[in-house]
């Protein structure tokens, strides 16, 4: 049986950061990286640009073989973890072989969640999570004349924009009452919606597909209100579910994801988890939440790597803060922090219809909880620190709202220069 000191499962942001952190402290301990993907490491976040053709599929890799050789990391691609046997510290692979580990990190991320719509298994549809998904979708988009995107989250919206730009008639179907629910508020979503409809897309929010069946064009969708839609390209982008099947029947505690503590350790010794598959403390709530975003995956991966290597520099995870950036039709939207207004909280908004500039900030007791901008650029990283450090902004609030960019930088220089 193969043996390794560190076993890292996954090869994306959380896993790569963990590798860096481990090697920062332990340059020699044997380290193996498994991924079920056949390719070199890449980010799911870049895939919309592979779909659009902007990024060449062979120019998106985050590391090359030389990196792994230099770091003394054994990389096994196309190798899936099937089951984790925590009672004997062994990982069982898809081909039945086993690897004995001293410490394992589960950084297996997430996969598209497929909604249980009657008939969904009778039609062909696309999803977008892997490079192979993206190259397939890239080819399909060029042929498409009438496309339907299920789900108006960021993945769906990105793909819809690509389809619009490729010349297809596009309909976006979303169950929630607004687009990009959970990322942006109604005003921001309205701005995004307008950009899409101005460019010819149809948006059906508050709509649910109740039936799917094959048709001459490709697929026929029936909505709750009886409307029927035909699609030659169907993209399902209704959310994600964490990859943790390999824990079925194990003692590792799970809820919506793999439950972890503040150094990303699971409920079982020698097992850590980080990234989209992990469920960790939220910054705004002590309850454990899913915060499936890239910056958090990287942060959690780093913490897990430090913990596994026993790095004394380890600091406890402060809790996940939502962070999102979104580009649409030449405009950009940034959201940092909580979108919920707590009791006693204060919301300030500013909207300039002519320029389409929109800013919204949420405060509580003088501290920033969340800030959103459309076409209003501010330093998201600085805002995030203001939130994490719970900086009292009472004295500078007016200035801050008038110009979050300049005021944020000033505060940054004074507080954590």
């Amino acid at each position: 049986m193969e043996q390794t000191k560190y076993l890292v499962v996954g090869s994306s942001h959380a896993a790569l950061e963990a590798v860096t952190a481990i090697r920062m402290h332990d340059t020699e301990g044997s380290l193996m990286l498994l991924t079920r993907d056949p390719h070199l490491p890449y980010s799911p976040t870049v895939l919309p640009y592979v779909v659009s053709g902007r990024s060449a599929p062979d120019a998106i890799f985050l590391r090359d073989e030389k990196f792994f050789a230099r770091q003394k990391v054994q990389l096994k691609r196309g190798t899936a973890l099937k089951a984790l046997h925590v009672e004997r510290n062994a990982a069982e692979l898809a081909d039945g072989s086993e690897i004995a580990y001293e410490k394992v990190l589960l950084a297996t991320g997430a996969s598209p969640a497929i909604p249980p719509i009657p008939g969904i298994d009778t039609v062909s549809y696309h999803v977008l999570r892997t490079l192979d998904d993206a190259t397939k979708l890239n080819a399909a988009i060029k042929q498409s004349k009438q496309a339907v995107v299920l789900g108006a989250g960021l993945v769906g919206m990105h793909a819809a924009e690509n389809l619009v730009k490729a010349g297809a008639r596009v309909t976006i179907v979303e169950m929630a009452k607004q687009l990009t629910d959970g990322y942006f508020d109604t005003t921001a979503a309205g701005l995004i919606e307008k950009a899409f409809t101005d460019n010819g897309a149809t948006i059906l929010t508050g709509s649910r597909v109740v039936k799917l069946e094959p048709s001459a064009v490709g697929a026929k969708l029936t909505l709750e209100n009886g409307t029927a839609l035909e699609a030659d390209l169907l993209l399902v982008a209704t959310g994600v579910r964490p990859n943790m099947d390999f824990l079925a029947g194990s003692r590792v505690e799970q809820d919506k994801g793999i439950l972890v503590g503040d150094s990303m350790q699971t409920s079982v010794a020698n097992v850590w988890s980080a990234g989209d598959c992990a469920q960790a403390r939220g910054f705004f709530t002590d309850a454990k939440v899913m915060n499936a975003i890239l910056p958090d995956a990287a942060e959690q991966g780093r913490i897990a790597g430090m913990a596994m290597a026993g790095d004394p520099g380890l600091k406890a995870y402060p809790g996940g803060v939502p962070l999102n950036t979104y580009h649409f039709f030449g405009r950009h939207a940034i959201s940092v922090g909580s979108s919920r207004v707590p009791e006693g909280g204060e919301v300030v908004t500013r909207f300039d219809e002519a320029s389409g500039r929109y800013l919204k900030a949420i405060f509580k007791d003088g501290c920033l909880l969340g800030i959103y901008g459309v076409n209003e650029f501010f330093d998201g990283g600085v805002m995030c620190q203001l939130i994490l450090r719970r900086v009292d902004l009472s004295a500078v609030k007016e200035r801050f709202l008038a110009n979050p960019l300049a005021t944020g930088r000033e505060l940054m220089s004074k507080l954590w220069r």
Partner: protein
Amino acid sequence: MGAYNTIAFDAEKCDGCGDCMTACATAKTGTTEISRSRIQIAGNAAEGFELALCRQCGDPKCVTVCPAGALGKDYASGVIDWDGGKCVDCLLCTVGCAYAGIALDAGTGHVAKCDMCDGAPACVPACPHGALKLVTTSRIYNEVGNWEDLFAPGLAGCQGCNTELLMRHTLRRVGPETVLATPPGCVPGMGSVGFNGTTGTKVPVFHPLLTNTAAMLAGIKRQYKRVGREVNALAIAGDGGASDVGFQSLSGAAERNEQILFMVVDNEGYMNTGMQRSSCTPYGAWTSTTPVGQGSGGMPSQGKTQDAKNLPLIMVNHRCEYVATASTAYMEDLYDKLDKAIQASKRGFAYLHVYSPCTTGWRFPTDQNMEVARKAVETNFVMLWEYNPRDGLQFTRPVDQPLPVTEYLKAMGRFRHLSPDQISHIQGKVVENLAFVKQMAQRQSA
């Protein structure tokens, strides 16, 4: 992998004029729109100005959150490079950076960040107030870091010894073609002259008497010359050995303009033998022979009652090829002077006087060496200057607004007992010494 140059910002000197931003925007965008500059000055006159600029982090967050592999640290230059061909304009890097070091350039729709202008940042020379500086101290490390240390490892200096640091740097620079003379003191005491027939150096070393170091070294240099070999003749001596009993031979060698480099490590006393006073010990300092206590005959004892001898100024009066004072807190200055001294020693007598705080004898924590050395200069207790017969005496690091001398005195235990009278005596001496050296500087350059 070496250390890197960085752009340093001195907020005190910035008046918010924005010239740096104009220079950057001009260099990088061909416009004068300061909002597009990659260096951003924030703040206001009332509360002071602040800087937002890429710090070229060693462990850059922007790189870790980039999904496109468009950002990467170049470990040769230290710069975090942005690859416009790979960037997908997702702005995640701006969310990753806590320092506003990478931001959206509205002019292009892409992010932009400081790239150090290939090593010659346009903003730095544009600052009319000297608030921006390209800090290049790392050059010393990059240059000498890989040179061979010509002292053996494991010398038995005190923990935090400044002298060990100084002598290792010095011999590295002077190089392997050297004969080293080191009279009784901390330098041989920590093992550089060796034990049981092996030496603590990787160059020939000898151990003259306190009294005859300069004479012996001069003779050895002459013999090498006679047989046609070019070597550097280097002495590393303590202040006691140079300013007290060794002074006669030192003065003689300087007067004869012998081709040697004489370095004095001035820790202001005989530290190696138990911290006795020397003629370089400053007024008021505690040593084991200038104790603090009841005294005798009703005269309390309050440290040294005489002022220190200014040996480097005496050496100037020998009209040596080169004379300079230096401090390990200012390494670039020290290296500069070392280079000049090495060159001068090929023509005649070169003298370097380096102030070297002593953690054991001066009574300060072992990690405070540089701080004590720096405070000495910042208060003008120690002045950094150099002299050669052609250009006269010049300050190399003038301190225009010196800190009160108490900032230096309170950094160590040997001055803890000082009375207000003693402190004002010392402050008076600092002023007097400065005026004296200034006069010399003027006279020489006139």
